[in-house]
Structures are given as C-alpha cells and as structure tokens.
C-alpha cells in the first residue's frame, strides 16, 4: 500500500518506521527542513519537505495513487485540511486524522474524514478497562452500524444481583450477548438467566444508550 503521512514529528516518525517495517511504501510530508534531514539521514529518502495541506505538494508526491493519507501533525486544523484536500482534490480512498481535541471527532466525520484518533480517548478507554470498579467498558465501536460493544461488570452491590434478565429494564437498542461468570462456563443469556455478582457481560448497544444500559445493569 502507498501511505502518505503528514507531519514528521515524534508520532509521524515512529509511525513511518513501523509502516516501513511492515513493507508498505510510505512517504512523510514535513515542513521543517531539519526534521526532514534527520529522517532522510536515518531512514533514506522517505521524507519530502513541503506543506501537506497544499494541493500542489500533494500532487507532487503522487497523492492520486495513494491508498491512504494519515495526518498526524500537532494541530487539528492542519490535519483536517490535509485530509480534506487529499479526499476532494486527489480522491484518496481512506483518510485518517489525529485529534488533539477529542470533541472534534464528530465534526471531522461530518466533514469527510474517514477515521479520527484521539490519544485522550484511547488513554481514557484504557483507564476504564484497567480500573476494575468501572462497571461499563467500551471494547469496540462498529461505526458503520452506529453500535458499540461493551463489557459490563456486575458488582456485588448491584441491585440486579439475583434478578433474571427479563426483569431488567434494558434500553431498546441494548442486547446482552454473552455472560462470562466468575466460576463456571460462559453462556448466552436467556430471558430467565439469573445474574450473579462477578458476572462479566458482553453487550451490544448504541453509544447514546450506554449510560442507560449502565444504570439498568447496576439497578439504580
């Protein structure tokens, strides 16, 4: 695959290295001549000095045949414009933007950026997963379907302990897929399955009803 990386900072540098190792054709666009020189000295001619937001620079490096453009500069506005120029001027099929402000995710999607990545959100998700007391952890997001897969833990204090699945007031868009109990084997929940403390439940829900699901599972 031909991948263009906009921004040769630390993130761009390590991304470039990893992608090269995987055997892809990669080119970094970087405005700063010194950074460009460092990358070229170390990794060969894989860095082009220029502004990745400029249509002419992107034309020069053959963006028209690129499979993907990844914008990882430190500024959200630059990442947005690089992706938009790649998409609208050069028909790049897949654009990925790094976000500093996680709140920009919805905006970027609306404006045509295919994927957004926010370090803040990733770290938050990891914390949620690491901290055992957090009852609902997001495992995966199915963007096209507008659904998320979550992991719900039934703590001993939950008032739902001892209740049957059909007694829970689950939001409409939420479905329980799997129960992984503390002891015993994993099973698919039926209407009369009884919840026990320590159960780990894999559920599918819409992002909007995540909080409602959490409340229903805690019984508050």
């Amino acid at each position: 695959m031909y991948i263009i990386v906009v921004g040769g900072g630390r993130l761009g540098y390590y991304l470039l290295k990893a992608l090269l190792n995987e055997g892809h054709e990669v080119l970094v666009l970087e405005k700063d001549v010194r950074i460009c020189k460092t990358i070229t000295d170390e990794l060969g001619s894989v860095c082009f000095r220029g502004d990745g937001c400029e249509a002419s620079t992107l034309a020069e490096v053959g963006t028209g045949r690129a499979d993907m453009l990844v914008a990882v500069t430190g500024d959200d506005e630059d990442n947005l414009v690089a992706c938009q120029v790649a998409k609208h001027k050069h028909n790049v099929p897949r654009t990925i933007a790094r976000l500093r402000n996680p709140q920009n995710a919805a905006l970027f999607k609306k404006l045509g950026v295919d994927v957004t990545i926010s370090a803040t959100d990733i770290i938050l998700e990891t914390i949620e997963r690491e901290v055992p007391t957090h009852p609902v952890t997001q495992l995966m997001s199915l963007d096209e379907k507008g659904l998320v897969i979550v992991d719900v833990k039934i703590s001993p204090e939950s008032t739902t302990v001892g209740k049957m699945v059909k007694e829970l007031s689950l939001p409409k868009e939420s479905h329980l897929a799997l129960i992984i109990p503390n002891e015993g084997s994993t099973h698919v929940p039926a209407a009369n399955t009884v919840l026990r403390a320590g159960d780990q439940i894999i559920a599918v829900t819409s992002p909007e009803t995540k909080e409602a699901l959490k409340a229903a599972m805690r019984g508050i």
Partner: protein
Amino acid sequence: MKIIIMGCGRVGARFASLMDEDGHEVTVLDNDTYSFRRLPPSFGGTALFGNGIDEEAQKRAGIEDADVFVALTQGDNRNVMSCQIAKHVFNVPRVMCRIYDPLREEMYSALGLETISPTKVFAQLLKDKVEKTEEKAED
C-alpha cells in the same frame, strides 16, 4: 445584524469597528487578548478571548443566533476549520472565510464556503492599476 469576527488583526479590528459604527452587533474573538489593542476606544461591541476552532468558544461568542461569521486569522487552516464549524454545526446563514492560498481557496469555494483570497484579489488589483497607468502613459 449579529456578526462574529474571528481574529482581531489589522483587518479584523478594522472590519469590526466599521460594522460597529454602522450599528451592528459585533463580537470579536481572538486567542490573544493583546490583539484587542487594535480596536478603537469608541468600539461598542464585545471583545472575547477564545479559540475560534473550538465549538465551545464559538458558543460563548453567541454563534447560535449569529447572522454572519467571518474568519480572519493568519492561518488558512484555522479559518477553514472555524468556518466549517459555523456552517455545518451551527448553521450560521452567512459564513465568510479568508484563505491566502489561492489553490486552497478554490477548493473550499467549490465545497460551498464563501471564500476570499486576498492574494488573488490584491494581485489582480495591482495588475489593473499598473496597466491603467501604462495606458495613460501611452496616450
């Protein structure tokens, strides 16, 4: 009319005071309060500290009932992003965007933004003026 201006540079400050003089409700947004020194003492509008590419800052500036949003910072990309927020998130009826780079200006104009490239306009103006004096000299 309620107008929000992002960027209180020379153009931003001047445009703000002109609109203020005409009796419009003007709010100027800048992420450096030192820029507000450019506003004249008679300026009757609001000068607000904030980053215009932030939805929250735009809300604080009153974007939800603004009639016009104009982006006049030094950064083309910042202008483009703030204008797209104003247009696509807050549905401001009139959004105007300064873009120095003529190529970028053409692209965003094609994508439906109302854009002005000072580079293009000024170069054209100079050309017209120079050619006019030439004609006069020939006469």
